[in-house]
């Protein structure tokens, strides 16, 4: 007779509990492939289902053909969204790092003002900030005789970079404060100035700590870019609505919106997946 295989864990109750409280496998939680497959399946279903109905009415164009026809236009709009997100991220990051450093300044008034600016922009809605920039920044500014025009999309970039700045400032403050005080003290004892300590010792270390949040912020920002369609910039969302009204077909609504949703999903998903991995890798082990 074969011996029974050994049981892992010698108490049955404990064994059961372990199964329950074990961390879920990453594949179950994130479902990269599964989500994508489900999305595509839903998308395909709404594409194919009307195709059968079209046997009766052959004069209508198929939804797939319409979507393919509009794809180059929409791709251009999506590229514009990406451009806006990259520019706002660049401006917001530079300003945010500066503001974050000011937030830990040894001079109290500077610290308070930086804190106030951060909290203000962090707690006001993105759309309201966008309106603020669109309506209150003049069309062109005259500096030293040269006229600098301000088209809507540049104002949108400024409007989106303000909250990015505020979030970045908070992340920087957290990261700088998370570095042990001993490092400041030992650097001081070696004769480094405050500026040298900040640029040479502290800031390089914050990069690793801020990186996951920074990437997550980029994904959030990219998902906020369709907001600019509300204030009249022709991004992918504005073009989608234009396409829908040009076609004027009710059965096109769901496939078209799913199509745009899947574009954003395909662009943002890898970013947040890598963010998870980095967060896991850099997480502080207790």
């Amino acid at each position, binding site marked *: 007779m074969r011996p029974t295989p050994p049981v892992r864990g010698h108490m049955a109750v404990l064994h059961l*509990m372990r199964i329950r409280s074990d961390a879920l496998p990453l594949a179950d939680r994130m479902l990269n492939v599964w989500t994508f497959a489900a999305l595509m399946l839903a998308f395909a279903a709404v594409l194919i289902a009307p195709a059968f109905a079209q046997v009766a009415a052959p004069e209508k164009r198929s939804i797939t053909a319409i979507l393919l026809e509009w794809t180059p236009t929409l791709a251009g709009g999506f590229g514009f969204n990406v451009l806006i997100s990259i520019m706002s991220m660049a401006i917001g990051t530079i300003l945010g790092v500066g503001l974050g450093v000011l937030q830990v300044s040894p001079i109290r008034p500077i610290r308070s003002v930086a804190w106030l600016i951060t909290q203000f922009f962090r707690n006001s809605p993105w759309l309201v900030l966008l309106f*603020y920039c669109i309506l209150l920044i003049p069309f062109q500014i005259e500096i030293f005789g040269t006229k600098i025009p301000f088209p809507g999309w540049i104002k949108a970039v400024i409007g989106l970079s303000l909250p990015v700045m505020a979030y970045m400032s908070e992340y920087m403050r957290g990261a700088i404060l998370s570095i042990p005080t001993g490092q400041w003290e030992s650097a001081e004892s070696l004769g480094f100035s405050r500026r040298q300590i900040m640029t040479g010792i502290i800031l390089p270390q914050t990069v690793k700590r801020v990186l996951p949040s920074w990437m997550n912020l980029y994904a959030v920002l990219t998902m906020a870019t369709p907001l600019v369609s509300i204030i009249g910039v022709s991004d992918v969302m504005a073009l989608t609505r234009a396409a829908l009204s040009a076609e004027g077909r009710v059965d096109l*609504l*769901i496939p078209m919106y799913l199509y*745009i949703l899947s574009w954003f999903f395909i662009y943002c998903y890898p970013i947040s997946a890598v963010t998870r991995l980095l967060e896991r890798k850099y997480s502080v082990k207790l």
Partner: protein
Amino acid sequence: MEFANTLIDWLRPDWFLNLVVISDDYNRARYLAGLWMTVKLSVLSIFFSLIIGILGAAVQGAPSRALRVLVGAFVAFFRNTPPLVQLYFFYFAIGTILRITGENGLPQPLISNFGWAIIALSLFAGALNVEIFRAGIEAVPRSTVEAAEALGYTRLQIYRDIVLPLAIRISLPALGTNLVNLVKTTTLAYAIAVPELLYISAQIWSEDLNVREMMNVLLVSYVGLVAILVWVLHRWEKTLRIPGYGE
């Protein structure tokens, strides 16, 4: 010099002396109605998103793999697509199809724009809440659960009396951030013409041409609303504090 003058002119706080919203009865009533609508949107979405979060987190701990996969797909989808497009998808795409015949024989939407705004906002924030609660449950120390087992607690008792209370405390900071974001996201309802604060303000400033004053009032209103929520959450966090942890 010209530039400096423009800048001073731009920053001059004339809204401080000329608050149309406060002085004019009609506008004040409209503004307050908008504020009330924003509060209603926020409170209802917070409530439903919390329910979605709790249910989702409970299902993610379930033994059935299919259910976990389903919730995972839901979270991944809502996290990685723009909330505005989700709102448009619900209101324009699904809302157009979900129609009933009204009393006058004409098709009428089954769910109002206010209803769709709440559904879209709750699903978006709920998906994030699922992740937050799950992280909180996972962060409860294993040894605590094992100690409870050794004391003879049943699984339900452990979940109800030990894991959940600890998980709530652990996930409170992240939950607070998400709820604040949700209040800010209610401005999206502007896009589907729900008469909330931003929508009403836009109406007022396009009628009275007081863009600068109204924008300032609007920003201050939102910062105030968020400040109230942050204060409430802070109080809650303080009452739930575990002695001996943190500062």
